[in-house]
């Protein structure tokens, strides 16, 4: 069920425009728990899937929005390559379009970059029903405004993404994870070290009082670094997939789960480290908190967003308190067709 279904999608957008109806964009609904639900009739990208172009020696892949991330990974893996970013695949159902719309990243983000960093171009339909291409497949491109990256995290409110080109990297020759059983104060001290030292790091995670650090590169370089980091135990690579895809046992709780974005080099500011999983050398924290009142005191720009099982929240929507956000939305989608209700 893969192919170019863009004509149907375009027609749907145009008919919504003509009758002033809203559409709610959905791929495989792998992130339906996120909320808020958009108003309007379902516009499914399911079926608008498949790789449009992939040349391993260009380190770029272009695929339709409905393509599963897991399928992309498999195709790239066959060439011993991988995406340059590591968005969660949510049970193998997460799509390329969805990954761009939410902009989440896995444990490699501080070292390898995010979806936004790896995005080279998008093709989209705006609220005028026009099909447009921004960016492209080349690494460097400063012609026109960077509309592609503006789509990352926009929750589909600026247009319907039809396809996208992402940067690809060779898979590392050798990977090893080192683990240290440490308390959260020591974990923080060691995490800071990860930003300061030129080690070939490709991920960090602190959970269950253990700090996991993944190293990737050639064997000698990785072994040198793992010695310097003082390794205790070795861990399977599947640990990292579990963290990336939110399949680690930590994520299986039923209580309200929040995502907290802290400054680089930030210290853990909660006593209940049992209830947290910390990635990005301290900067991305997943925390179970019953009270919407965060126990963490935030510094400038730091923020918490409800992620799962948080009742009655609307803070996940994009706020138009800022007039520039409001005007931007209108510049792309003047009739408020796309994901109405998600921009409030």
């Amino acid at each position, binding site marked *: 069920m893969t192919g170019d279904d863009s004509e149907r999608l375009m027609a749907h957008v145009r008919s919504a425009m003509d009758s002033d109806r809203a559409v709610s964009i959905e791929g495989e609904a792998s992130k339906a728990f996120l909320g808020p639900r958009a108003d309007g009739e379902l516009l499914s990208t399911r079926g608008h899937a498949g790789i449009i*172009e992939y040349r391993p020696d260009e380190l770029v892949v272009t695929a339709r929005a409905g393509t599963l991330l897991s399928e992309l990974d498999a195709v790239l893996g066959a060439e011993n390559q991988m995406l340059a970013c590591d968005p969660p695949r949510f049970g193998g159902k997460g799509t390329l379009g969805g990954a761009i719309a939410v902009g989440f990243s896995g444990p490699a983000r501080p070292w390898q970059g995010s979806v936004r960093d790896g995005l080279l171009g998008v093709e989209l339909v705006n609220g005028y029903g026009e099909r*447009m291409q921004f960016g492209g497949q080349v*690494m460097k491109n400063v*012609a026109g405004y960077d509309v592609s990256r503006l789509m990352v995290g926009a929750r589909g409110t600026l247009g319907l993404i039809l396809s996208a080109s992402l940067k690809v990297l060779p898979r590392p020759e050798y990977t090893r994870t080192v683990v240290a059983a440490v308390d959260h104060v020591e974990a923080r001290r060691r995490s800071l070290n990860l930003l300061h030292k030129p080690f070939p790091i490709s991920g960090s995670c602190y959970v269950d009082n253990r700090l996991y650090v993944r190293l990737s590169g*050639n064997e000698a370089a990785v072994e040198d670094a793992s010695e310097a980091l003082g390794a205790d135990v070795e861990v399977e690579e599947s640990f990292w997939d579990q963290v990336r895809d939110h399949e680690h046992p930590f994520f299986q709780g039923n209580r309200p789960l929040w995502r907290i974005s802290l400054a680089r*080099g930030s210290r853990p500011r909660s006593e209940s480290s049992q209830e947290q999983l910390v990635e990005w050398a301290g900067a991305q924290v997943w925390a179970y908190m019953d009270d919407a009142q965060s126990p963490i005191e935030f510094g400038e720009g730091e923020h918490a967003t409800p992620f799962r099982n948080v009742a009655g929240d609307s803070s996940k929507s994009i706020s138009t308190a800022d007039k520039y956000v409001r005007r931007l939305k209108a510049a792309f989608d003047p009739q408020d067709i796309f994901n109405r209700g998600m921009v409030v």
Partner: protein
Amino acid sequence: MSNPRVLELFRTHLPPQSIITDQAAVRPFETDGITAFRERPWVVVLPENVEQVRSVLQISHDHDVPVVTRGAGTGLSGGARPIRDGVLLTMSKMRKVIEVDLEACTATVEPGVTNLAISDAVREHGLYYAPDPSSQIACSIGGNVAENSGGVHCLKYGLTVHNVLGIRVQTIEGEELVLGGKTYDSPGYDLLALMMGSEGMLGVVTQVTVKLLPEPPDKRVLLGVYDDLPKAGDSVSAIIGDGVIPAGLEMMDALAIRAAEEYVHAGYPIDAAAILLCELDGSASQVEADADRVSDIMKAKGAINVRTATTEEECELFWKGRKAAFPAVGRLAPDYYCMDGSVPRHAIGRVLSEITRLSTVYQLPVANVFHAGDGNLHPLVLYDANKEGELQRAEAFGGKILEYCVAVGGTITGEHGVGVEKLDQMCLQFSEAELNQFHRLKAAFDPGALMNPGKAVPALARCSELGGMHVHEGKVPHPELERF
């Protein structure tokens, strides 16, 4: 031209030495790095702090006066060329390093701080700021944000957009936008990404927080010598395809090699058709393994010789010629016209052949220097502006090169920006709908079109006028080529 009321208001907010109207004193501000585009602004203002920037913007907004923002004036597309009736807002007095945070590995600076000064400020801690445009000694970080600048090392370490964590932007309506900071993300639309490379069209950057990286423990530069240009081009794809990500991968052709060698004596082989410079960095063992692989690939692809620099001095010597390439080529002719197309790596060979062909058609020599690893070409078209018609011929030649870059799936500018220089080629790369979207996007931040008007995105009328010239019978050039 002068607007006495506006001037009077500026004087109530800025010290006298920050306002220049004297025509002789204004002259150095007539152009940026591309001197073919020249205009004298009626006033140059040099604010010392963000309050003064905001006052200048507010006053200009209230009186409908256009504002052109200028950093160090090193840009290569005329993006900071002044406007006759406009204010030239020059950020060079705002050059404080506000904070170096060694725990977060970040530096927060004012926009006038030079690119290199950031690395200089943190070098003692074993850190550096990765993007390194060739003008890094002079160009300012505010300008780097406006252009999304790259450099030799962006192949591995990314562009400005990948290395800036936060900025503060003043809008023409006199408001401050705090975008990002020291976190990796912010809620809502990614306006931080949108500001990168927006060429002063959306706002004025007044503060920048950059990510600092630890200095790599080891580095090595390889110099591959080729008797054939396409073989060097093939080596580029082969190195990247093999899984090595060099810190830098640069190519120079015969004319560029000879010019550089005569100019700085870097020890380049003057009879070579092309050289490839490949820098590898990382841990000692990683560098050694990668160097062996790259050397083998270069030889397998036909390099007649591969030399290796291991000491700091040797590495610098190898780079010296590349870094001096533009001024070196500049000695070969009274003028040169530098293009900045970016193409898929596999198309490099084809594009080079086309450039050679066009060089004969237009009867102008061309030297090729480029960031081969990124597919970012810098053909330097040599001409003499004093000879009747040569400038026009050089511009036409350059335009054809960019058309070809777009036709093979590339872009008209990889890192220099559109400015005023590449407005015509924007009509080739973007459709009417896309250009309209750009205009609406700009209007969201600047409804009165007062920020850097006439730059970066062409008016639709301009594209229609050009229609007959570039887009023959409504067809894209080179329909015979696959587009991908």
